């Protein structure tokens, strides 16, 4: 149930009161008494008689004096009433603190794109993508490693049964991650209100980061533990 704005409630009360026969208690006395009567303020009448004379003479329809502010071509308009937007529709869009996407956002995006392109280009000029010997089913390299982002899983496989390391743990993680918004019912996004969620996620991300780093740099021949400064990264780590 949406909340009914206060001014609408008030208006309906006034209308009810009017229907019952009582004159509505007008709170906005100044504005309504100005608009109510058919009379035109004397000052405006005088103005129009001077400025809008041709229109009044030519048009047979204009029995009462033409209103003020005759346009340059003789058009006349009369302001009957001002309907405030809030009175007949609930305006949801309140003017917030907004900036134009061009140039403020596009310039930042363009700059970021340029930087990443420059970085990738320079990196690619100096460091070549690996291409080892032709694939050979009969020569298993030692160690054999998955791509770096799966090395956490491969690392888990050294500790647990494949059913747990390869299926259960990643399965639970992916389900929890995907449904995080429906599990975390805390409506606040202020860090001080989210200590548990932030802690859990940090532990989770560090868990994978540490496993990936161990799998990448600290596993040598036979996927045994080694120090990269002892054996070097050659043959141990590929990107």
């Amino acid at each position, binding site marked *: 149930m949406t909340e009914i704005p206060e001014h609408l409630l008030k208006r309906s009360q006034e209308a009810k009161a009017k229907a019952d026969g009582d004159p509505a208690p007008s709170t906005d006395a100044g504005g309504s008494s100005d608009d109510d009567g058919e009379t035109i303020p004397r000052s405006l009448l005088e103005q129009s008689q001077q400025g809008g004379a041709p229109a009044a003479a030519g048009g047979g329809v204009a029995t009462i004096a033409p209103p003020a502010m005759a346009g340059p071509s003789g058009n006349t308009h009369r302001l009957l009433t001002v309907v405030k937007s809030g009175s007949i529709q609930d305006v949801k869009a309140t003017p917030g603190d907004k900036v134009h996407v061009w140039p403020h956002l596009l310039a930042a995006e363009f700059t970021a794109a340029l930087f*990443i392109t420059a970085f990738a280009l320079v990196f*690619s000029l100096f460091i070549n993508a690996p291409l080892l010997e*032709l694939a050979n089913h009969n020569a298993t390299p030692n160690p054999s490693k998955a791509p770096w*982002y799966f090395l956490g899983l491969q690392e888990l496989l050294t500790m647990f049964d494949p059913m747990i390391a390869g*299926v259960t743990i990643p399965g639970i993680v992916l389900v929890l991650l995907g449904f995080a918004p429906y599990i975390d019912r*805390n409506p606040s*996004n202020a860090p001080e209100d989210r200590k548990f969620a932030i802690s859990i*996620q940090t532990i989770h991300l560090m868990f994978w980061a540490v496993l990936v780093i161990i799998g990448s740099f600290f596993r040598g021949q036979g996927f045994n533990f080694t120090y990269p400064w002892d054996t070097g990264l050659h043959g141990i780590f590929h990107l």
Partner: protein
Amino acid sequence: MANSIEKSKQSLPEKLQQGATAAADWMQDSQFWTSVFRPGSIFRKGYTDSPRNRSYVIMNSVLYHLHPVKVKRHAVKVSYTLCLGGLSFFLFILLTVTGIFLMFFYRPTAAAAWSDIESLHTQVSFGLLVRNLHRWTAHLMVLSVFLHMARVFYHGAYKAPREFNWVVGVMLLKLTLLLSFTGYLLPWDQLSLWAVTVGTNMMGFTPVFGDQVRFVLLGGKQIGAETLLRWYVLHVLMLPFVLVIFLAIHFWRVRKDGGISGPL
């Protein structure tokens, strides 16, 4: 005579500049130009920086599909987003461009794949450079998508009304990993073969359907020529296709859910 000397005193750069200005004016006035660039475009003649034109730059261009005319002031703060989502998308575009280039020189068969890459290095202009770009931006994309996810989590940006967009984002993370993994096999060297062997062996442990899925993906009991073709099609066509659909939903939802989250 004196007059012509006077005229020739005008230096060559000045003449060139005058000519260039005249040519630019002529071009910007042409029907072709005004039909390409809609009113408010910064490439139109006489573009001035005004609030109206700033709105038109977005509203009257294809960018309107991606961006609204205005965003919340904090949404343009680089310190809030670190540009990670945008960079992930940009890296995807770079990968598409470099990937299309590589497709011209690569045949996904066990007999040709490796030697095609080898000759790409040595016989194709910029072949090695473009392959390097493709490889490194792929790793960068995995990294930036992952960091984007972390950033969104730490800002609590997955909370209502953005729950579903988080789910779409997790799908995009998985698709990114799959795209990277399928691409890993294509060079058909020892690194590809054995990295993918290790990776797909893990898949086989999945209960009930693990072996069947593995069989379908590999096109056999172990990695072979069929695997290469399948993963090539997955890598260059199917996964990018699915990813683009999810991207469209992701970007659309960002706007429908009221722009990016925050400020904290």
